[in-house]
């Protein structure tokens, strides 16, 4: 089953859920890396879901302290937005204030996980990330003006840039062997001694967040700017 069919199946599921719950104004499913798999909206008004996802991803990074992120709910005086984790994906929907939340939740909690589970059993090839990750060795980066920018070999950045139509790679995603993920800015390694050794120099703050050890291999992949 191709990714298109997978996405179509989820899109159909979202549409059916919206037919059952007409108060849902917008719904979409996305992966942890921010890829939107399926999306439906009540009207044609464009909503910047990508911006919400980006903000949500930043929040995910901060939730290690409470044991990850299973659900997120915004309660406004005109409507609500709920994002819940379904296996390794996230289901988001917004609804008007008059919506019967208990009903919506019972529908979404039953239908969508069932569809996702079914698809995962059928799909032989899971959804691929947009780029193949690079295995690098973690190295702690400390100093006064380090901020939150990791450093990797310039060659890797150039290689990624060429792969993605000369896109400027300014951000990466780091994943540890324990499955902890963090996003941060990236720039080439500045100190000569660390160049060409397959290292990633991770700023102290992110280093601690990832609970990574010096010399531990981590997966690193570029965040590709939109449109590339």
């Amino acid at each position, binding site marked *: 089953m191709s990714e298109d069919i997978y996405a179509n199946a989820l899109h159909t599921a979202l549409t059916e859920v919206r037919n059952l719950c007409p108060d849902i104004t917008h719904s979409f499913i996305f992966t942890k890396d921010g890829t939107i798999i399926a999306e439906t909206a009540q009207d044609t008004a464009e*909503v910047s879901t990508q*911006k919400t996802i980006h*903000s949500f991803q930043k929040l995910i990074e901060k939730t290690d302290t409470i044991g990850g*992120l299973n*659900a997120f709910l915004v309660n*406004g005086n005109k409507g609500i*937005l709920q994002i819940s984790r379904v296996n390794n994906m996230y289901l988001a929907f917004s609804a008007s204030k008059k919506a019967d939340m208990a009903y919506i939740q019972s529908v979404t909690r039953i239908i969508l996980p069932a569809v996702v589970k079914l698809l995962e059993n059928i799909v032989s090839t899971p959804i691929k990330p947009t780029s193949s990750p690079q295995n690098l060795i973690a190295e702690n980066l400390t100093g006064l003006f380090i901020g939150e920018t990791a450093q990797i070999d310039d060659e890797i950045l150039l290689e990624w840039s060429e792969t993605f139509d000369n896109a400027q790679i300014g951000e990466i995603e780091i994943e540890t062997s324990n499955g902890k993920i963090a996003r941060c800015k990236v720039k080439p390694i500045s100190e000569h001694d660390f160049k060409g050794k397959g290292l990633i120099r991770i700023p102290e703050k992110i280093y601690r967040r990832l609970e990574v050890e010096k010399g531990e291999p981590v997966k690193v992949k570029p965040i590709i700017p939109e449109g590339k």
Partner: protein
Amino acid sequence: MSAKRKPEEIYADLYSNLENIRAKEGVIGYILRNSKFASVNLNDPTKIIDYAILSTELLETGEVATKIFELGSMNSVVVEGNNVKVLSLVIDDQRIGIFMDKKVNHSKISKELDLTKLNQKRNASLNQNSQENQEQNETEVPP
């Protein structure tokens, strides 16, 4: 006399309310802050920084989502992890983060804080009425 309550008064009221909430079963702690003051009361003081960062990020994400999805004005934001959930809200310029066990009913706590909000509005309105009455009395010309 000012019609609007001073931030210090609102802060003091919220502080007292949060101390009551803090005593409830399953509530791990809270962070209350405004531009001048901050109160932190957590079971585990080593988590203060992590919780403060999470609470701030939660409100920011909530604000972004509220704007994008046109949810009106944001009443509250909740994030739930495997063990703990966090309720964040803004009352005037007071930013609140309440940390609790996953099983605690956050809606009840949210309602209690909404009552605080209502009381503040009511007090502000009473103050305004009292000010207006006072002004009216002062301008009345005696016969």
